[in-house]
């Protein structure tokens, strides 16, 4: 069930209403059943895989906690990690692995032929496996008591708002919330609604409309001229941000309506002035997951010499692989590692220059330059992320140098193509107005926390703001042939 579907608009109020009608001790049952229903609405059979992972990790964590012997604890941890990761490997990476081994075997003349599996990837598998793993690791480290109640643990892994695309929660944050009493509060409903509404706006108005243009440009990079190739790259950066952060906002908002506080997953990353800052603002729940469970155990930045670069490479390569089984994702990850390594190397020099700019009263200019450089590096890497393969990415970069003389006429051709393929499409003027509105909201959110947004505004103005966004979504959003959330595939 997609968040931006009529089914969800019916499902959500029913669940929220029942949640507050039920006594506290039964609420987890409702959330568990609702989550099962939510997940089963995609592919029902895959519910069993999820339940399997839950059972393995629940009992592994229990065994870890009950065992005094360190070696045994480790053994249980390894069993749990292997079991969870093997599911991930079979469903997500086996075909990629097999194809590459086959290609290599053909290259060296070795007789190897392993077929591919024709199984669909369970939606959001990487998200809930990582959430489950974080629990077992935390128990192993002694930072989290094992959960005694299987139902609550299952609900922690399956909590429907964040089940298929995060935020990837930590047990310390989420599990206790299932045990807390959440009274029905106007404030929670209001804040939750507000955050979710912004998420719907990002997803349905910005991401889904931009996707139409992005798809055309990436499908035939050299068809519309250099300006459009570049515009397609910019549009994708905005699309992927709005798509994913829109999902997170809806998840956070929906959870908040029931009194749950999920972690913030995005903090306006497109305004970052360095790649390091970008990764502190982009997909925070995943970045911190890698930081806590891979980077720091590898020694983090407290290592000597060039080891830090090795650690960075490992983390970002794994991050790339996490996103998908494909060379484009691996190169995307490697590219981030290169960016950050260069940034770390140049850190003393950039600090010096920043200070100088500030002394000269040009701090804002230095920030603007840093932002522009960061943004373009991010856009560059996102082209590889989005491309169907490396050839496609190369074609798009190559197309950027083609005829760059007439922006307007190229845009007209692209727009006409989008309109041909999709009968009722938002005209460009409204699309760019939406982009301006979105940028304004992002700028405000850069300074103000989303929960505080509109909180001090008079009710009438606040409600007018809500109505404007609702009407805007209805008029300019896509809900008939809207694409799925990009991050569902991970």
């Amino acid at each position, binding site marked *: 069930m997609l968040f931006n579907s*009529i089914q969800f608009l019916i499902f959500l109020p029913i669940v929220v209403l029942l949640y507050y009608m039920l006594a506290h001790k039964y609420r987890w049952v409702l959330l568990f059943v609702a989550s099962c229903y939510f997940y089963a609405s995609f592919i029902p059979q895959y519910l069993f895989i999820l339940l399997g992972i839950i059972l393995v990790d629940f009992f592994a964590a229990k065994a870890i906690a009950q065992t005094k012997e360190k070696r045994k604890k480790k053994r249980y941890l390894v069993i749990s990690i292997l079991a969870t990761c093997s599911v991930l490997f079979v469903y997500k990476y086996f075909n990629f692995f097999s194809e590459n081994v086959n290609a290599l075997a053909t290259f060296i003349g070795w007789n190897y032929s392993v077929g591919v599996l024709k199984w669909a990837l369970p939606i959001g598998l990487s998200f809930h496996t990582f959430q489950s793993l974080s629990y077992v690791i935390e128990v192993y480290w002694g930072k989290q008591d094992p959960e005694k109640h299987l139902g609550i643990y299952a609900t922690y892994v399956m909590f429907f708002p964040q089940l298929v695309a995060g935020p990837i929660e930590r047990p310390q944050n989420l599990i206790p919330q299932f045990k807390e009493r959440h*009274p*029905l*509060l*106007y404030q929670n*409903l209001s804040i939750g609604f507000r955050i979710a509404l912004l998420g719907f706006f990002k997803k349905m108005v910005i991401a889904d409309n931009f996707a139409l243009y992005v798809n055309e440009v990436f499908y035939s990079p050299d068809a519309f001229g250099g300006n459009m190739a570049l515009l397609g790259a910019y549009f994708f950066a905005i699309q992927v941000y709005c798509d994913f952060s829109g999902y997170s906002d809806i998840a956070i908002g929906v959870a908040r309506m029931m009194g749950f506080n999920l972690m913030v997953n995005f903090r306006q990353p497109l305004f970052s002035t360095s790649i390091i800052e970008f990764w502190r603002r982009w997909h925070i729940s995943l970045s911190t997951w890698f930081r806590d469970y891979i980077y720091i155990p590898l020694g983090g930045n407290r290592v000597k010499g060039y080891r830090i670069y090795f650690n960075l490479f490992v983390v970002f390569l794994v991050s790339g692989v996490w996103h998908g089984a494909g060379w484009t994702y691996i190169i995307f990850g490697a590219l981030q590692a290169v960016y950050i390594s260069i940034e770390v190397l140049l850190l003393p020099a950039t600090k010096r220059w920043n200070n100088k700019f500030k002394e000269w009263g040009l701090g804002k200019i230095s920030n603007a330059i840093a932002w522009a450089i960061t943004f373009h590096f991010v856009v560059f890497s996102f082209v590889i992320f989005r491309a169907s393969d490396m050839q496609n990415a190369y074609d798009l970069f190559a197309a950027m140098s083609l005829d760059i003389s007439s922006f307007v006429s190229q845009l007209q051709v692209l727009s006409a193509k989008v*309109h041909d393929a999709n*009968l*009722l*499409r*938002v*005209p460009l003027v*409204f699309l760019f107005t939406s982009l301006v509105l979105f940028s304004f909201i992002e700028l405000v959110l850069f300074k103000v926390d989303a929960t505080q947004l509109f909180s001090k505004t008079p009710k009438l103005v606040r*409600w007018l703001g*809500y*109505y404007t966004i*609702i*009407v805007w979504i*209805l*008029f300019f959003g896509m809900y*008939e042939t809207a694409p799925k959330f990009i991050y569902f595939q991970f």
Partner: protein
Amino acid sequence: MSSERKKIWSNLFLFLVPLVLGWATLFVLDGRERFRYFFPKYNCMGHSGWIYDMLNLIDRPVDIAFIGTSRTKDNLNDYILEQHLKGKGIDMNVLNLGYCRFGRNMHHMLAKRMLERWDLKHIILEINLKENWDGHEDFAYLAKNEELFFPVMIFNDNYLEDIFKASKARFDDMRSNVFGVEMLPPVHEDWIHGHFTDTTHADVNFLDRLAEEGKHIKKTEGVARWFRYQFSFRYIDKTIKMLEEKGCQIHFLYLPQYGLSRVPEEYDYFKKRGTVLIPPDSIYNNKYYWKDGSHMNEYGANAMSHWLKNELVAITQPPH
């Protein structure tokens, strides 16, 4: 009720009022009917758009009309039938208004529209092995407000879905106006017959398999029958009453898929209400005439129309 709950309910109510009013405005303004007929553009190859033009814009009277599913549309060539009648000196125009998918609410609505426009003499309604128990999936787009909100049974499976669909169609009409996008094609004045199919042939093994499966289909009886068919029966009875008031005769034409019983399950029900026409085995059992398990190809349509033309001549004769 605690003050917090009161606050929530009152705010929720107040917040929803403008949204509900906005939604109601869609139905008050109602938009362009032609837009709604063209809205389900991917269903039945956009045939509903042509149906609108035929019912409203194309200047041609109709005397005999066929209503039914895609089987009616495919299996009956209204041009051949009309030419035959004219050849026999019967100056009547024939129209095939078959539209893909089942749903008696759609048939009732189309009959009503035709009666509003033409002095219709005969309607031939398609019947199948079993009656369908729910409404037509495109009814919502084509229905007028009163037909949508007050169907024969409020408690039907499609009621809320239909209202949602109808809202969407009206809203999209408004959106297309805001966007300044003209999405409607021009009227084709010369397209005056509704039949179309193709010349492909169904796989013979597939037809055999269907026939085998058809032997095991159980009759719907008792409470199940009463419960399942209420929606359809009520619409059929309402249609018949409406036609009687206008002096239009109703006849039924049995068009099952290949390999099913040669008599409809509800034969007695239909027999009480009009003539039931059952195509002969020579046509129905001829595998060459089928393009798939449900529809006939052009050869089948020709054969069927040539059989039906004599039946039509018979039913158009005044009673002695």
